[in-house]
């Protein structure tokens, strides 16, 4: 009984606030309905706590994302190259990129680790480091934020239709405007895309193939289409600059 209790309290990752199968709920006001003792009702404070996930599986929510980033990311050593790539905000998110790359590598344990430079290059190619970009104002479901996450992706990450097996990320559309939540979700999504490419290829997909899948152009690349190649070359150009920077510095 004691051993079972210990296992159930185990965390997915040492940075997590709550045990596996539970998610963090931030301190919030709670309305207490009227009663004999308090005929008009009252407002109390429900303090931070861990709540069970209905699925029993791991789920990351923005309140934990904030805490994790604040407590741990400054100390993460494997950061992307500290070059702006000539973007005004090009170095602004380096700590978040480093932290979430490290986190998802630790949790999902790929044989070839995802590198933070790759995430930074992907952000450069998707949004030029503009955190508030929405692809289509007439369609609030369109891609948003640093990593241009669509609403369909957001729903899959939260496992609304059961398409993701484990390690869900739950964030609203508005919450994805926050760079921290966006990068957390975006890196998880890239892992998803690598899994999909792997399934289609019948062998382990490379991270570059995962990026092509992320951009919706992997099939066109395989067919040798020029425009798909230009899109991936643009991403590769940024990645090359970042990799060169690390070698030189």
């Amino acid at each position, binding site marked *: 009984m004691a051993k079972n209790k210990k296992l159930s309290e185990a965390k997915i990752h040492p940075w997590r606030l709550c045990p596996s199968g539970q998610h963090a709920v931030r301190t919030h006001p709670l309305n207490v309905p009227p009663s004999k003792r308090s005929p008009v009702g009252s407002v109390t404070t429900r303090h931070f706590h861990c709540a069970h996930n209905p699925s029993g599986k791991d789920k990351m929510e923005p309140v934990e994302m904030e805490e994790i980033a604040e407590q741990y990311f400054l100390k993460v050593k494997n950061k992307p190259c500290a070059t702006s790539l000539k973007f005004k905000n090009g170095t602004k998110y380096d700590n978040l990129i480093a932290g979430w790359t490290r986190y998802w590598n630790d949790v999902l344990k790929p044989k070839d680790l995802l590198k933070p430079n790759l995430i930074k290059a992907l952000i450069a190619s998707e949004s030029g480091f503009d955190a508030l970009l929405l692809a289509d104002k007439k369609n609030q479901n369109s891609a948003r934020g640093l990593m241009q996450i669509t609403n369909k992706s957001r729903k899959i990450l939260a496992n609304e239709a059961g398409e993701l097996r484990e390690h869900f990320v739950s964030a609203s559309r508005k919450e994805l405007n926050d760079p921290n939540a966006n990068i957390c979700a975006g890196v998880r999504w890239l892992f998803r895309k690598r899994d999909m490419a792997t399934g289609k290829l019948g062998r382990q997909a490379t991270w570059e193939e995962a990026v092509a899948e992320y951009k919706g152009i992997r099939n066109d690349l395989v067919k040798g289409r020029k425009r798909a190649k*230009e899109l991936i070359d643009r991403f590769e150009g940024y990645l090359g600059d970042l990799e060169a920077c690390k070698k030189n510095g």
Partner: protein
Amino acid sequence: MQKKWLVLFSFLAMAFTFVSIARSDESHLESLRKQFPYGLLGDDHGLLNVKDLARNATIGDEEPFSAKSNAYPYWQCLPVKDIALRCENTGYDEDEKSTLAILAVVAIGKERDQEYLSRRAFSLSRCRAFQSDWKRLSAGESYACFSGPFSSYGTNDFGKQTTYWAFDKFKTQKGCSSYFADECNLRQGK
């Protein structure tokens, strides 16, 4: 005699108007270049304003255009008659549950084409909406201006020299259409 003076006066008035317009065009372009010396490649044919160039300066470091300038978006204005907006179908995406496409704006040049490409494949239906925008905003127009960061020098499927750019937006006298929301409704400071 009076008729001769009238003809001379009309001629001088027309000449003066022509020179004024030419000078005003020069001063418009000069004014743009003074504030943003690198942001516009070539002539804008009166289509751009300071806000258009100011917005791009918030994205990337302003620098003279070169093959290494792949962050700062540049504006360039091209003849509408040479331009086509295409949606290159990339197939059905299981996660998006829709057919995706790469947006490709193709401007034919004598020796070199220009192509503005979307940053990723996105819904074909949205790409078609861009085609509708292009049809509407370019009808009867001589020039359209395009904004986006440089991507690479390459060749297209037919082996022709092509300069590739990332597509951000296009603008004509009739209006503007952008890949990202609100990039055509520029507020002060953005």
